[in-house]
């Protein structure tokens, strides 16, 4: 067993739940050095950018003027061969973040992936293991979203 940056396994599926709506605001596959931009669901005319730098750090950025307290959840697909995953290093950003680890066994400590709510946590779909999250991150301000 070795720990390696998830993106060392190749491009990973990244999902962004940015607005607290009923679906992921953006999903796609990113490799190191790539980024994607999409319309900010909570700020008309603004854009959100999700990027992966050359060292594998994932960032979510906005050009909206007011983003404090935003509900932002990021999930990264579990790489092939991986049995568990973790977030490493400090999570930087506009607000402190609450981090839950996810394993291939489906243990996610109450953090959502799709559907559900804060009081009724979402669960991964066992029939779709390729979409199990590597990590889910929600800003503490409000991550109910569902």
């Amino acid at each position, binding site marked *: 067993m070795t720990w390696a940056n998830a993106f060392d396994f*190749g491009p990973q599926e990244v999902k962004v739940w940015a607005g607290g709506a009923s679906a992921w605001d953006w999903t796609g596959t990113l490799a190191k050095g790539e980024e994607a931009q999409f319309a900010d669901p909570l700020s008309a005319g603004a854009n959100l950018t999700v990027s992966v730098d050359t060292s594998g750090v994932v*960032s979510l950025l906005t050009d909206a003027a007011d983003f404090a307290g935003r509900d932002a959840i990021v999930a990264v697909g579990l790489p092939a061969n991986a049995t568990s995953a973790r977030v490493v290093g400090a999570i930087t950003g506009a607000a402190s973040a609450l981090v839950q680890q996810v394993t291939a066994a489906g243990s996610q400590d109450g953090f959502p992936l799709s559907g559900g709510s804060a009081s009724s946590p979402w669960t991964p779909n066992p029939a779709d293991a390729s979409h199990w999250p590597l990590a889910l991150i929600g800003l503490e301000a409000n991550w109910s979203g569902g």
Partner: protein
Amino acid sequence: MALILSFATEANADLPTASCDEIGRATRCYVSAHDRMRVHGSRLVRGEKRCLVADYNGAISAGRMIVSVIWRCYDGYAVAMSNARILDGLRQAAVDISANWPGGEWLQCEATLDNGEVYVQRFRVDVRDYPCFDVPPVVSGPLVLTAP
């Protein structure tokens, strides 16, 4: 542009750990960055079982990694494949081959890189068996193996 959040992730990986003890070039191919038609030739004694390695270190840029590999053989009779894998470092691929029966076999390794490129390396393995000892042959091998 304001940062909402930033983080890094790690995965605990069941990377292939099987080592390969091929110390020479008999069944280790250093894949060429320049001659993509190069065929690596090997001659094996019938009854041998060893790893066939495609070493891409000299053929792909430093940041590239192999994310999947397909091993194919032409008829699976003279040589039987098993245990296709990507070796530690994710820049070499290997498959175990058994020299099953006198004759020749074509094989090829198709390595898909993390940027989507596919690099193909071809092999020709000739199995020799003279004088002929009574080595029982193994069954014919598969024509295609993939990893992971």
